[in-house]
């Protein structure tokens, strides 16, 4: 990061030159002293990382045994072989993990950097004010950099820091640099932390610039689903993560009163962010009149996993893509359906002609007359106008296309009957749908399998590519699900943004003591092992049990597609606060940073810790005391890797779906190693062997049932008081009984005292502790005399950091 030193001249003061020896950020009205680690570099927090990985052993499952990264390669690294450069398999896996985390991290921080430039260009510098209920306003920025931005522009150095560190870290993946897996993992954790920071900056910028909700538990319910797109209007789809162009399309529609002619539907995170755009009421007065926002007028077309289903359903007239998570053959797929496509961001240009500097009329004319399948327009305002105008003008020209939206009955039959039951498709289907069988049934006239597996299909098109009969399987799906598509109309809560300080004040103590059993953060993408419904099931399970449930991104959209007996989506069933039995849609992928933020704020607001430049201390607090667990049940991309890694460095464990073995690395605890679970009592520096709480940091679950059990378990913390531990143990055992038919075998290790025991099984459990585990029980007092790993101690102050010891004993 630049210290921003040098000699400058000031605009409008042409002949004044100020020569400055060293310019430092002004130290201003912030009562916290600077912590030990402002702007930490690669090695700064390495001690903390090593603490984590000493306990949570780095576990690798290579997906490829070879390396092909330099001209010495390919090298076979299987087993104990080394590459020509000397690298071994573990380090190589660490290297790939670091690369993946950096790819995810840069997706976020590059998004933030784009918004930074764009919002400054469009709105000028705006004060960074999150409102009276959010005074701890950029917790990651404060914790990591030790700074406290007061305007949007002041996030510049934060982004600069992220970028500098990213370059340092990427360099480490070069042949002949880092050579040890532990250091690769420390570097990956660093990158994960940078990822969280980049996300925070990105979301803070857009919250301020687009006047998004600043922690609104009553954020509006918005329309979600393919069925909500009004076929009587032109349908413009905005697809990706960066709302810049999409917002301009909306402003254009608003300014030109075109909402009765066009429906704007978002796909992926742009969808969520579209609906977060406010009314401009949060602006400083002087610009409130200058920029009119639109409020919640866009629709959520759907999550990333629905894209190809939308293509097949032919629900769009024009598409704008921006950045991230855009199927890379979107252009070809749109072209086939005569849907003009506009690329609006430098990151995705798809080989299209760059028309940024051409007149709007010409571009629209070219697109509407299909003279080219798409264009790149890097100016958001122009792109937005072209998008809306093209959608409206092309609609009549697409009448034929719209009519033949679905294949005909004859075509359907012909295709289905051409299946030779060769199984080729089944060798490539990620969720293992028995497509051959499904198609065979279809040929017999039974469409049920096509319906019941519609949501399980992830839309990867591998089956179509493998099919020697060229059967357009996704078209069969669309045909069989026409009614569903038409009626896919649900309500989702718009993204609320950060957690409020007031909310933290309310839940801080219950969380640390365990009486709110945990925060469950459901994040990620659309690559489900067994269908989208499982994300709804997870959410429902935990919100019902009184956990605080938060969600973001595609998960929030996908869980909106299911209703209870009363036809209510989860958003209609439960309130949107950061509290037990609530479910909040925090926002888009970058909003995940607010979950970190909430955890940090428990440490600062509830526990009064200084967060400033004090990352390891805060992470240690969270690891020891804040029962939170992330889950990425459809995790697809490198961003999911960086998000999880960022959670982990901050002491928050995460559970992921089985396809996530592609990430190659996990952090798993060994309960058979007592010494791994030694924790310091901050009161006197004494060492205490603790129960493994949490047991793992990054865990792949095989089934959604295991996922839920593990999440309940990973909410245990050494700081739980007896009531809290009792509640957590109850849920843990209860989920096990419900889905596994028995108690989890390791429940006793979480028992420190009889009052930790779930009331409903207390008697039986005590008997079992005595008979099976040989614990001494005082049956009169219903007390445990010996057996537990450690004794219950209400004032135990667990930490992993030496400098937190208050009095050395």
């Amino acid at each position, binding site marked *: 990061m630049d210290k921003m030193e040098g000699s400058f001249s000031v605009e409008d003061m042409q002949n004044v030159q100020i020569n400055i020896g060293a310019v430092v950020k002004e130290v201003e009205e912030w009562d916290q002293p600077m912590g030990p680690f402002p702007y930490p570099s690669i090695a700064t927090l390495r001690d903390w990382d090593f603490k984590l990985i000493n306990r949570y052993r780095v576990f690798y499952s290579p997906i490829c*045994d070879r390396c092909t990264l330099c001209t010495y390669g390919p090298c076979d690294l299987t087993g104990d072989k080394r590459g020509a450069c000397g690298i071994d398999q573990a380090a190589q896996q660490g290297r790939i993990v670091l690369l993946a985390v950096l790819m995810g991290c840069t997706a976020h921080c590059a998004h933030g950097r784009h918004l930074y430039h764009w919002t400054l260009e469009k709105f000028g510098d705006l004060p960074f004010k999150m409102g009276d209920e959010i005074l701890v306003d950029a917790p990651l920025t404060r914790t990591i950099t030790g700074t406290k931005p007061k305007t949007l522009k002041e996030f510049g150095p934060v982004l600069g820091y992220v970028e500098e560190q990213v370059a340092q870290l990427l360099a480490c993946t070069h042949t002949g640099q880092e050579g040890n897996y532990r250091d690769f993992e420390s570097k990956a954790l660093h990158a994960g932390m940078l990822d969280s920071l980049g996300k925070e900056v990105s979301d803070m910028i857009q919250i301020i610039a687009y006047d998004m909700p600043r922690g609104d538990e009553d954020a509006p319910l918005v329309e979600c689903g393919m069925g909500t797109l009004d076929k009587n209007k032109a349908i413009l789809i905005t697809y990706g993560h960066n709302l810049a162009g999409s917002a301009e399309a909306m402003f254009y529609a608003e300014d030109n009163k075109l909402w009765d002619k066009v429906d704007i539907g978002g796909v992926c995170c742009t969808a969520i962010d579209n609906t977060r755009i406010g009314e401009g009421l949060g602006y400083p007065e002087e610009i409130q009149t200058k920029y009119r926002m639109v409020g919640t007028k866009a629709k959520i077309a759907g999550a990333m996993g629905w894209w190809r289903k939308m293509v097949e359903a032919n629900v769009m007239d024009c598409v704008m893509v921006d950045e991230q998570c855009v199927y890379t053959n979107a252009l070809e797929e749109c072209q086939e359906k005569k849907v003009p496509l506009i690329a609006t961001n430098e990151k995705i240009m798809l080989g299209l002609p760059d028309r940024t500097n051409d007149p709007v009329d010409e571009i629209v004319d070219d697109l509407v007359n299909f003279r080219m399948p798409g264009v790149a327009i890097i100016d958001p305002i122009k792109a937005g106008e072209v998008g809306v105008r093209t959608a409206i003008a092309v609609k009549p020209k697409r009448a034929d296309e719209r009519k033949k939206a679905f294949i005909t009955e004859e075509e359907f039959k012909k295709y289905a009957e051409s299946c030779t039951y060769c199984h080729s498709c089944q060798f490539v289907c990620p969720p*293992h749908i028995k497509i051959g069988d499904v198609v065979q049934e279809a040929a017999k006239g039974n469409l049920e399998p096509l319906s019941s597996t519609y949501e399980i299909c992830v839309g990867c098109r591998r089956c179509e590519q493998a099919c020697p009969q060229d059967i357009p399987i996704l078209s069969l799906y669309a045909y069989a699900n026409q009614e569903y598509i038409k009626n896919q109309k649900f309500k989702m809560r718009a993204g609320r943004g950060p957690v409020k300080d007031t909310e933290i004040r309310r839940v801080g103590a219950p969380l640390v003591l365990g009486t709110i059993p945990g925060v469950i953060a459901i994040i990620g993408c659309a690559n489900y092992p067994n269908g989208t419904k499982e994300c709804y099931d997870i959410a429902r399970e935990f919100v019902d049990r009184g956990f605080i449930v938060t969600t973001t991104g595609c998960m929030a959209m996908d869980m909106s597609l299911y209703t209870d007996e009363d036809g209510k989506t989860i958003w209609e069933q439960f309130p949107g606060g950061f509290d037990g039995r609530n479910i909040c849609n925090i926002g888009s992928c970058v909003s995940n940073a607010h979950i970190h933020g909430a955890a940090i704020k428990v440490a600062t607001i509830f526990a009064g810790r200084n967060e400033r430049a004090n990352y390891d201390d805060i992470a240690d607090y969270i690891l020891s005391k804040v029962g939170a667990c992330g889950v990425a049940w459809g995790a697809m991309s490198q961003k999911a890797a960086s998000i999880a890694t960022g959670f982990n460095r901050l002491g928050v464990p995460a559970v992921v779906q089985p396809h996530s073995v592609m990430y190659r690395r996990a952090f798993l605890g060994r309960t058979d190693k007592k010494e791994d679970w030694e924790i310091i009592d901050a009161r006197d520096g004494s060492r205490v062997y603790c129960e493994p709480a949490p047991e793992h940091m990054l865990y*792949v679950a095989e089934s959604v049932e295991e996922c839920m059990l593990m999440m309940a378990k990973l909410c245990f913390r050494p700081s739980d008081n007896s009531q809290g531990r009792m509640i957590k143990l109850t849920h843990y055992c209860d989920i096990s009984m419900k889905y596994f038919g028995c108690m989890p075998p390791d429940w006793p290790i979480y028992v420190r005292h009889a009052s930790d025991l779930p009331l409903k099984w207390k008697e039986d459990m005590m008997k079992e502790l005595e008979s099976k585990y040989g614990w001494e029980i005082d049956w009169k007092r219903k007390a445990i005399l010996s057996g537990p790993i450690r004794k219950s101690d209400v004032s135990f102050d667990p930490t992993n950091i030496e400098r937190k010891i208050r009095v050395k004993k």
Partner: protein
Amino acid sequence: MAVDTTKNAVPFEMAQIPGPEMAKAYNTAVIGAIVKKAKRPLLVVGAELFEDPVMFDKAIEIGKTGVPIAATAHSIKGFVERGYTDNVTMIGLHPLTNYLRFKDWQGLDGKGQYDVVIFMGIFYKFASAMFSALKNFNRDIKRVSIDRYYHVNADMTFGNLAFDPEKYHEAIDEVIAKLAA
């Protein structure tokens, strides 16, 4: 005549080609013999058994020959429902594999590390990755798949039998017969 389990020896997910070291497909007699000869075998079964519940019964038959069972995911439920939990332990596949890769682990029963692990009924990609972890980081353990898939990262595996459930059942029965013999 014995089922030919050596055919179709291509990865079930076609693109799963890790490198020069790839599993060989064996017939049931050889696989049965290897498991029988094992000093510390461990049968690892996963949640895919629920899709073909008779497999629980077969797993139990294997269990009864003295091979302890690790029931991953929520597969323990199938054993509980059948009243057979003697030598069945509930554990996640991920932590189990993590334990397996350490030479100093003492096993689910505290009696020592295993020498042969046998996978069955586990989500393909997950099983494949766990085999890979052992293949690369603990080569002392023999990796055997008796799942319906060709498992590239195992030492010994069947070819793909996923599209012929009967043959697959037969093959498992042959392995059981060999173990029980």
